[in-house]
C-alpha cells in the first residue's frame, strides 16, 4: 500500500458515520444518544466537527471545510479533529 493510498484510508478510522448519525444534535450544543440515553454538551467547534463527521469520512476535506469557517491553520485543525474523533469513538459505540 503506498502512502497516498494509506492517507486516503485514514479518515475511515476517524469515526463511524452510522453511529454518529443516530445522535440528536441541537444548534446550541445539546447532544443526545438515543441508544444509551446519555446526553452531552458540545462546544461550537466540537459541534461543527461532529456535524461534518456525520457525513464525511475524509480528514482532508473536513479540515479544509473547517478552515473556511474557522480562523485556524490546517495542521492545528487536523490535530484537533483527530483527537476529537477519538473522543467521539469512545463516547458513542
Amino acid at each position: 500500500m503506498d502512502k497516498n493510498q494509506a492517507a486516503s484510508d485514514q479518515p475511515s478510522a476517524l469515526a463511524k458515520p452510522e453511529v454518529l448519525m443516530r445522535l440528536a444534535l441541537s444548534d446550541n450544543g445539546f447532544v443526545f444518544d438515543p441508544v444509551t440515553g446519555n446526553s452531552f454538551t458540545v462546544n461550537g467547534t466540537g459541534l461543527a466537527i461532529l456535524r461534518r463527521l456525520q457525513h464525511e469520512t475524509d480528514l482532508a476535506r473536513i479540515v479544509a471545510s473547517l478552515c473556511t469557517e474557522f480562523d485556524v491553520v490546517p495542521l492545528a485543525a487536523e490535530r484537533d479533529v483527530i483527537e476529537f474523533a477519538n473522543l467521539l469513538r469512545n463516547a458513542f459505540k
Partner: protein
Amino acid sequence: MSQRSPWVKPVLTPHRPGGMNKFGALRPQLHQSELDGVAIAPLLEQYGSPLFIVSEGRLRDNARHLRRAFSTRWPKVRHGWSYKTNYLGAVCSVLHQEGAWAEVVSELEYRKARTLGVPGSRIIFNGPWKPAAALEQAVLEGAAIHLDHLDELFAVEQIAQRLGRQVPVGLRLNFDTGYTEPWSRFGFNIEAGAAMDAARRIGTSQWLQLTGLHSHIGTFVLDVRAYAQQARIMAEFMEAAECETGCRIEYLDIGGGFASRNALQGLYLPPDQVVPGFEQYAEAIVDALSEATRGRAALGKPLPVLVLETGRAVVDDAEVLVTRVVGGKRLPDGRRAAILDAGVNLLFTAYWYNHDVRPLQPLEGLAEETVLFGPLCMNIDTVRASVMLPPLNVGDALVVSPVGAYNNTQWMQFIQSRPAVVMVMGDGSVEPIRQAESLQTLTELERMPNALRPPFSDAM
C-alpha cells in the same frame, strides 16, 4: 478582516444525571460486543448459539491478583484450584500454569487432574466420599488427603498399613465462626470434641501422621470477619493438637467461599459495593493468623503454609454466555418476555444470581422491564425475572455474565444439548475448548434391546 469564527478546542462534556448515589453507579456501557478486544458476533456465527466464551487473560489476572494479595502478606501461600467450580480442561490448565494445585472432591475429579498432567503430590483430595481405589492411588501418589469422617480415617490407616508406609493426612474441621451457618456435615466438629478425638487417634497410629488442617466455612461469604474468626479457631486448634498429640501441622487450608462480582438475589446493593476484594479477604485472614501464631517462632515452630481453595472469585468473571432471542411475547400482566436459546440448563447459577445481561449490539428504543425465559418446556426456566432491556427482536444476541463459576460443571443435558465453549487466548486468538454436543452425545451410551427396535405399531 476575517469573517471566520475563532477556533476553540472542541469539547464534549457528558451529562451525569444518574451518576453515583448511595445505591449504585452508572453502567459503563449498555451493550457488550467484545471480549478482550475480540468481536463476539463472528464467534457466534462460527460456533453457534448459545456459546460460552472464557477469557484466558482475565483468568490469569485473577489468579495472579489472588496470589499477590496473599503472598505479600503471608510467607507461604498455596492455591488449590477448585475443580468443581469449573473443570473444563483448558480452564484448569491455565490455573495450573499459574501455579495452582488441583483441589478435587471425587475420584472423577482426581482422575481428571491426573489426566491433565497434575502429579498426585500437587492434588488436594477433599470430599465426603473417596472410594477405596482412589484413596489408595492418592496415598501412593502423595496427594494431600483431607479426612472427612472416622471411616475414612480407618480406611486410610488400613491402606497405609498394607503398603507399609506412614501416610501424612489432613483433618477437615467444622466449627461455628458466629458469622456463617456452620457446615457440620463435613469433617470433624471442634466444639463437640470430635476433631480432637480424631487428632488423638491419628497421633496414636504408627501409620498416620497429622500434617494439615482444613475447613470451609461457607459459600459467597461477604463478611471478611468470618474468615478472620476461622483463622483464629484453626490456629488455636493447631496449637492444641500439636500440644496434645505431638504432631507438627504444616499447613492450614481455609477452603474457598470468597464471593465473586455477581449479584446475589435478595441483596439490595450492587456487587461492586458489597463484594470484598482479594486484598480485604487477605488482610482480615492474615491479620488474624499472624496474631494467633505469634508465639510459634519463639518455640522454634515454623509458620504453616496458608492454603486457599478459591474457585468462584477466580473464574466467575472470566466467562460469559452469549445467547440469542428466539421469540417474544407479552405476559398477561403486561410485562414483556423474551425467550432465549439458553436457560437454566446452562445457567444453573440463574437460580441464585441476577446475572448482568446486555445486548451484543446497541439496540434502539426505550428500555422496558423484561422477563428472560430459557428454551426448556419447564416453568422453572427463568434466566432473569426482571431486567431493563430495549426492545428485543428474534435473532438479537445477549451477553450474560459473570458465568464462569459452577455453570460448566452443573449444566444439564436436559431437553437441549450443551453448546460449545471457546477461549479467547492471551494473544487475541480464539480456541475451541469444548465442542457443542449433538444427538450422538445423548445416545452413544445407550443400548437398544432388539425386541424394542422399530417398526412400531400404530395401534392405540
